[in-house]
C-alpha cells in the first residue's frame, strides 16, 4: 500500500463523493421513470394552463372551464396559468387544483365520457354547470356509481 499524500486523498474523497452523488441521481431517474410507468397522470402545477391540463389528462377543455365556472370558449382553451385563474377567483391554487382533479375524475371511467363540445343547456350528467367559489364536489357514494363503459373514450383537446 502506497503512502498517499493529501492531494491523493483528496482525489479518493472526490471520487467517492462523485460516485455517491451520481448513484443518487441515477436512483432518482429510475424512480421517476418507474413512477411515470405506473402513474400516467402527472401532478398539476400552478404554471399549467387549463388547455395543457386537459391535454395531459385527456379530457375536453370545456369540462375544466365549466368546473371553474369560466365561460365556455369556442376556439382555443384558456392560455392563462391556473395560478392566475385562482387569483382572479379569489381561491388558492390548491383549491383550484382540487376542483380540477374532481372534474377530471368525473370525466373518466367508470363515469360516462363527456362529449367533445360543451352541451348547449345544462350538463349531460344532470350536474350543475359550474361550481360556486369555494365548493367542491364530494366523493360520489358507491350506489350512485354508473356502470363502467366497455372502452374508455376520452375526449381530446382540439
Amino acid at each position, binding site marked *: 500500500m*502506497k503512502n*498517499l499524500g493529501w492531494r*491523493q486523498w483528496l*482525489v*479518493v474523497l*472526490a*471520487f467517492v463523493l*462523485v*460516485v455517491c*452523488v*451520481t448513484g443518487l*441521481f*441515477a436512483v*432518482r*431517474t429510475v424512480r*421517476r*421513470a418507474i*413512477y*411515470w410507468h405506473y402513474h400516467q397522470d*402527472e*401532478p398539476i*402545477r*400552478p*404554471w399549467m*394552463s387549463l*388547455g*395543457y391540463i386537459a*391535454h*395531459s*389528462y*385527456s379530457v375536453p377543455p370545456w369540462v375544466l372551464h365549466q368546473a371553474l365556472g369560466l365561460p365556455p370558449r369556442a376556439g*382555443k382553451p384558456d*392560455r*392563462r*396559468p391556473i*395560478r*392566475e385563474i385562482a387569483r382572479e377567483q379569489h381561491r388558492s*391554487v390548491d383549491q383550484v387544483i382540487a376542483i380540477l382533479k374532481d372534474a377530471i375524475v368525473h370525466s373518466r371511467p367508470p363515469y360516462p365520457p363527456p362529449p367533445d363540445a360543451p352541451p348547449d343547456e345544462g350538463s349531460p350528467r344532470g350536474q350543475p354547470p359550474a361550481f360556486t367559489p369555494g365548493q367542491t364536489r364530494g366523493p360520489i357514494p358507491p350506489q350512485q356509481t354508473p356502470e363502467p363503459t366497455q372502452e374508455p373514450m376520452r375526449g381530446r*383537446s382540439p
Partner: protein
Amino acid sequence: MSVTDQVLAALLVYGLPVLFGVILICSVGFPFPISLMLVAAGSFVEQGEMKLWEVIAVASVAAVLGDQIGYGLSRWGGRRLINRISRKLGAETNIQQAEALTKRWSGAGIFLSRWLVTAFGPWVNVASGIAAYPWRRFLLWDVLGEVLWVILYVGIGYTFSNRVQTIAEILGNLSWVIVGLIVTVILGWKLMRIFAPEATT
C-alpha cells in the same frame, strides 16, 4: 410558487420573448432548469400554442448569443485578468499548457456541452474564452451543438407533450447522471495512475 413555475407561467402567457430572454440569461451562466422550458415549448407547439420554426429559431439564436456573451466576456475581460495573475505568480508556462490542451480538445467539448452535458456549457464558454480558442471555430461548434440541443428537447416535448413535468424531471436527473459518470471516469483514471505500480525502466 417556485421560480420554475413562475417562468413557465410567463412562457405560457407571453411566449417567445420569455423563451428568448430566459435561454439567453441561462446560456450566459444563470442556473435554471432550462430543459424543462424547452420541453414545455415543444408541448405548446404540439398543442398549437406556438409555431415549431419560431421556437427552434428563437431558442437557437438566444442560446448561441448567450454563449457568445460568455465567451466574449471571458476572452476580453478574463484574459487580461489571467495574464496579470499568471505574470505575478510566474505560472505563464502552466497557463500556456492549459491553453494548448483547451485548443486541442475544445471542439468536442464545446459541441458536447451544448446538448449532452449542458451543465458544463457556461463553464466551457468561459474556458474557451480565457484560452483564446479561435472564435470562428467556437461559433461553428456552438451553433451545431445548440441547434441540436433545441431540436432534441423541443422534439422530446412535442413527442411527450402531455407529460412535460415528468419527462423534464427525468431528463434533468439523467443529465446529472451523465455529468457524474464523466467526472467519475476522469477521477477513476487519476486514481488508477495514483495506485498503479511504479513503472520499471
